C-alpha cells in the first residue's frame, strides 16, 4: 500500500517521497459538577505525504484514503511553488529499544475501571469539602506511527498513554477558586489518588485571599510555572527561529544565556513520557542532549529542513505538532519542536528556600502567558494561583494581580536558588521535569 503510494509519487514527478501514517484510538471518561458525564472515544487514521521535486518540498495530508491520488498530485504541485531546500530524507533505520512506550496493562484496562478512577476522584474531593464541584477526565490511548521514505527508511513504533486531568471549583460569594492537576504517561503506573490529593492540597493553601502591594518581589516559580515559562526558551532554541534570525539566541551558541546554576537536558527518550519516541516525525533518531550547560547554550532544535540552512545536523526534533494543543498530528508538516526538558535540581529544599527568602510570592498557575512577546522573552501574565509568603510561610492566595518580566533577564541575572525537589509536568506532547526556581526583582502588579 505505502509502496504503491511511493511509486505513484515518482510517476507524478517526485524525486523523493516520504509517507507518514498515524493510527490511533483514545477513550476518555469525563466528569463535570461532581458526576460522571460522558464517555468519548476517537478513532483516527491519517496519512501525510511529503515529496521533493528538484529539492523543492511539497506537503499533503488526508484522512480519506480514497483521496490519496489527488493528495499526491497536490503535494507534487505544491512543491513546484517552493524554493530549493537542500534537504533529503534519512536512510538509517533506528531501533526502538531503550525506551518504554507500551504497556499492555493500559490497553487492557476496561472503561469501567477508568470510570471507577473518575468516581474515586469525585468522592475524595467531596469528602474533603462537599461544596467543591469536581470535574476532569481519565483517559487512555493507543498510537501507531510508521514512516516510509524513498531513501530506504521504514520503521514504526506503538505507544500507549494513560492520562488524567482532575479539578475542583469552589464558589464563595464572588470568589471563584479553581484548582487542577494533570498527569500522563505511557504505562499503567499513573496514581489517580495521588493526583486527586494534589488538587486537595492546592485547595488547602488557596482558600484565604490576602492582599499584596505591587512592586518588584522575590518570586518562587513552582515546577509547573517554571515549565510554562521555559516555553520562551523553546522558542529561542527553535532552529526555525534561529534560521530566520528572529531568535535572540541566534548568535549565542557557547555563550552564557542563563545563570550558572542552570543545566537543562533534553531527553526525548524519557521513561514513561508521552512524547518519547525512538525517532522523530521525519525518521531522525532521538537522543539525549544538553541544551544549556551551567547557563551556557549548547544546542538548538533542528529538523531536516533547517539542518542544511544552518549547516548543522538534524537533532531529532522534527515533530508534527498541532501547535494550539501541543499534540502530534499527521495534519501538520514537521517543524522543530523541543521534547522533554529536564532542568537539573539544586541542593536546597523548597522549605529551606521559602524560609530563607522571608517575604515574597509563589507563582503556580499563570494565564495569558502566550499574549506576550515571548520571542523576545517579555512576558506578562495574570496570576490564577499564586501565594503570598510572609516570614518564610505561605499565608494566602493573591489574586487580581499580574507577574511580568523578561525571561532571559530573570533567569540569567536574578536567579537565587534551584530546589532539590523536582516534579514531572505534562504539557500535551511534552513531559518536563522541573525544580522550584527562586528569583528576585520580579515585577508583581496589583
Amino acid at each position, binding site marked *: 500500500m505505502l509502496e504503491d503510494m511511493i511509486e505513484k509519487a515518482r510517476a507524478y514527478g517526485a524525486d523523493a517521497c516520504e509517507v507518514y501514517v498515524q493510527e490511533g484510538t483514545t477513550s476518555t471518561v469525563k466528569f463535570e459538577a461532581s458526576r460522571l458525564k*460522558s464517555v468519548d472515544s476517537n478513532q483516527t487514521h491519517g496519512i501525510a505525504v511529503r515529496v521533493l521535486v528538484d529539492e523543492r518540498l*511539497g506537503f499533503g495530508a488526508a*484522512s480519506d484514503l480514497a483521496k490519496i491520488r489527488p493528495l499526491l498530485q497536490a503535494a507534487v504541485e505544491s512543491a513546484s511553488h517552493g524554493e530549493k531546500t537542500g534537504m533529503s530524507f534519512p536512510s538509517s533505520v533506528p531501533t526502538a529499544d531503550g525506551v518504554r512506550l507500551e504497556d499492555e496493562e493500559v490497553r487492557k484496562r476496561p472503561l469501567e475501571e477508568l470510570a471507577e478512577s473518575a468516581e474515586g476522584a469525585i468522592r475524595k474531593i467531596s469528602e474533603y469539602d462537599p461544596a467543591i464541584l469536581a470535574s476532569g477526565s481519565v483517559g487512555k490511548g493507543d498510537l501507531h506511527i510508521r514512516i516510509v521514505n524513498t531513501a530506504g527508511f521504514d520503521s514504526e513504533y506503538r505507544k500507549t498513554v494513560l492520562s488524567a486531568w482532575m479539578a475542583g471549583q469552589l464558589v464563595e460569594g464572588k470568589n471563584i477558586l479553581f484548582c487542577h492537576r494533570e498527569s500522563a504517561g505511557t504505562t499503567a503506573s499513573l496514581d489517580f489518588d495521588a493526583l486527586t490529593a494534589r488538587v486537595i492540597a492546592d485547595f488547602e493553601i488557596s482558600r484565604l485571599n490576602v492582599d499584596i502591594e505591587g512592586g518588584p518581589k522575590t518570586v518562587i516559580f513552582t515546577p509547573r510555572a517554571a515549565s510554562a515559562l521555559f516555553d520562551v526558551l523553546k522558542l529561542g532554541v527553535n532552529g526555525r527561529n534561529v534560521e530566520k534570525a528572529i531568535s535572540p539566541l541566534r548568535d549565542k551558541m557557547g555563550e552564557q544565556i542563563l545563570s550558572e546554576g542552570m543545566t537543562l537536558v533534553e531527553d526525548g527518550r524519557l521513561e514513561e513520557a508521552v512524547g518519547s519516541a525512538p525517532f522523530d516525525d521525519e525518521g531522525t533518531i532521538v537522543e539525549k542532549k544538553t541544551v544549556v550547560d551551567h547557563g551556557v547554550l549548547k544546542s538548538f532544535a533542528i529538523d531536516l529542513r533547517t539542518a542544511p540552512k544552518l549547516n548543522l545536523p538534524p537533532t531529532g526534533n522534527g515533530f508534527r505538532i498541532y501547535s494550539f494543543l501541543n499534540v502530534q498530528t499527521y495534519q501538520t508538516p514537521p517543524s522543530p519542536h523541543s521534547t522533554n526538558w529536564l532542568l537539573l535540581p539544586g541542593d536546597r529544599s523548597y522549605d529551606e528556600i521559602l524560609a530563607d527568602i522571608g517575604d515574597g510570592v509563589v507563582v503556580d498557575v499563570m*494565564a495569558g502567558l502566550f*499574549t506576550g*512577546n515571548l520571542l523576545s522573552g517579555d512576558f506578562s501574565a495574570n496570576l490564577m494561583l499564586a501565594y503570598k509568603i510572609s516570614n518564610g510561610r505561605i499565608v494566602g492566595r493573591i489574586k*487580581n494581580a499580574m507577574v511580568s518580566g523578561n525571561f532571559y533577564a530573570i533567569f540569567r541575572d536574578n536567579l537565587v536558588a534551584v530546589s532539590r525537589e523536582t516534579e514531572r509536568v505534562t504539557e500535551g506532547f511534552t513531559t518536563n521535569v522541573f525544580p522550584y526556581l527562586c528569583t528576585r526583582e520580579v515585577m508583581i502588579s496589583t
Partner: protein
Amino acid sequence: MRNRIRDLIGKYNQQCDYMEVRIEESTETSIRFSGRELETISTRAELGGCVRCLVNGSWGFASFNTLDDIERFAEMALAQARLLGQQKTVLAEVQPIEDDVALTLKKDPRGFPLDAKVSLMKGYNDLINGYSREITSSTVVYFDRYHKIGFANSEGTNIVQEKMDIAGVCSAICAEGDKTRAQRVVFGSNDDYSCAEGLEEKVREACQNAILQLRAPKVKAGRYTVIADPALTGVFIHEAFGHLSEGDNVYENKKMQELMTLGAVYGSEKLNVYDTGLQMGSRGYLKYDDEGVPTEKTYLIKAGKLVGRLHSRETAGTMHEKPTGNARALSYRFPPICRMRNTCVQAGDVSFEEMIEDIDLGVYAINTTGGETWHELFTFGAERGYMIRKGKIAEMVRDVTLSGNVFTTLKNIDAIGSDQTLHNGPGGCGKAAQMPLPVGEEGPHIRIRDVIIGGE
C-alpha cells in the same frame, strides 16, 4: 450517505433517549511564508464522522474516520452512554428541521487557482521584507477551508450545511540584538475572499509600527484608565464575559447560578452585549449549530443587566431556558459544547475625543494578541499601546497586557463609542481541547477605568 445515516438512527434509536450522527467532509488549502521563503503549501482532505447517544442523562460519543465501520462506532457510543447513565435526560425541545444550506459567497476562494493565492501572499511578503533594513523577517499565512457537514438526529432533524472559512495574517518582524518585535495585519471572513486582498496599505503601517516598537519603552506596571480600540474591545468582551455566559459553566452549578441570575447587574446602563450566529462576514457565522438548532442573536447584557446565556440543548433544558444555537464542535472528532459565535459590544454614542479628553494618565491599547479566561479572572494582550497624557495621545509603549475581574471590570466601562467594527483574525477560541474554533468579535472604542497592566 443521508439514507445510510437515517437507517443507522432507525436501527439504534429505540435503545437510547437521543441519538445524533454527524458526517463532515472538509478540504483546506494553506500557504505560509516565513522570511523570504515560501515555507509551506499544504492541502488537506478530511472525511470523518461521529455518533453521540444519550442514555439516562449520560453521553456516549464516538468519532471515527473509517466510515465503513460506522455501525460498530454507533454501538460503541451506545455502550459508552449506558456505562454511566443513572440520571434523567433533559434536552430542551426544538422543532425537527430538514434543510440544505448551500454556500452564498461574495467571492469564492475556490474560484482562484493556488498560483493566484500564492502570488497574492508573496506580494505582501515581499512588501514586508523589502520595506526597510530594520525589518528582518516576516510571517505571512493564508488558509481557506471548505466544510460540508451532514447532521441527523433521532427526532427527525436532517441538515446538510456547507461552510467556508477564510483567514490569515501578515506579520512584520524586526530583530535587533536581543529585541524582537512584530506587528500584524489579520484578516478573515466566512463568505468573501476579498478579505485577503488589498491589504498593502495596512501591511506598510504594520511595518512602520514594528520599527517604532523597537524603540518604544515597556509600559510601566500599574492601574490605568484604558481606551481599547474596536479590535481589542472584541477580544475583551469575548474573554471578560463571553466565556462566563456559556451555559455549561452554570447549568449544574448552584453557586454559579446564584452569581449569574438573570437580572443581575454587571455593567452600567450604557452596556449592551450580544452574541450572534447571524452576522454574515464573521468567521462566527452559522445557520445551525452542531445540534441542528437554528442560531440567533442572543443578548447577554441589556442596559447593564444579565439577560441571557449561550446554551446547548442540555444546558437550556436543565435551566428551563430557551436553546440559543451555541452548541458547537471544532470538527467531527469532538462533541458539541457551549461556544460563542460572533460576540459584540453594541455601539454607544461617545466620540473618541470625548472619551480621551478628561484622561490625565492612561493607555490607548490597540489590536490584540489574544486572551485567556479562568472563571472571573481574564487577561488580554494588546499589540501596541500609546500613553495618554493630559487628554492627548503621547508616546508609543510596548508589552501592554491587561487583566481584570468580571465582577468589577465590566462596571468600570464608562464610555462606549459609536464606531462598532467587526474583527476577524486567523486564530480562534479554545475550550476543552477544541481549538481554534472560528469566532468573530465586534465592538466600538470603549473606555475602562482601573485596569491592571503588567509591565516594568
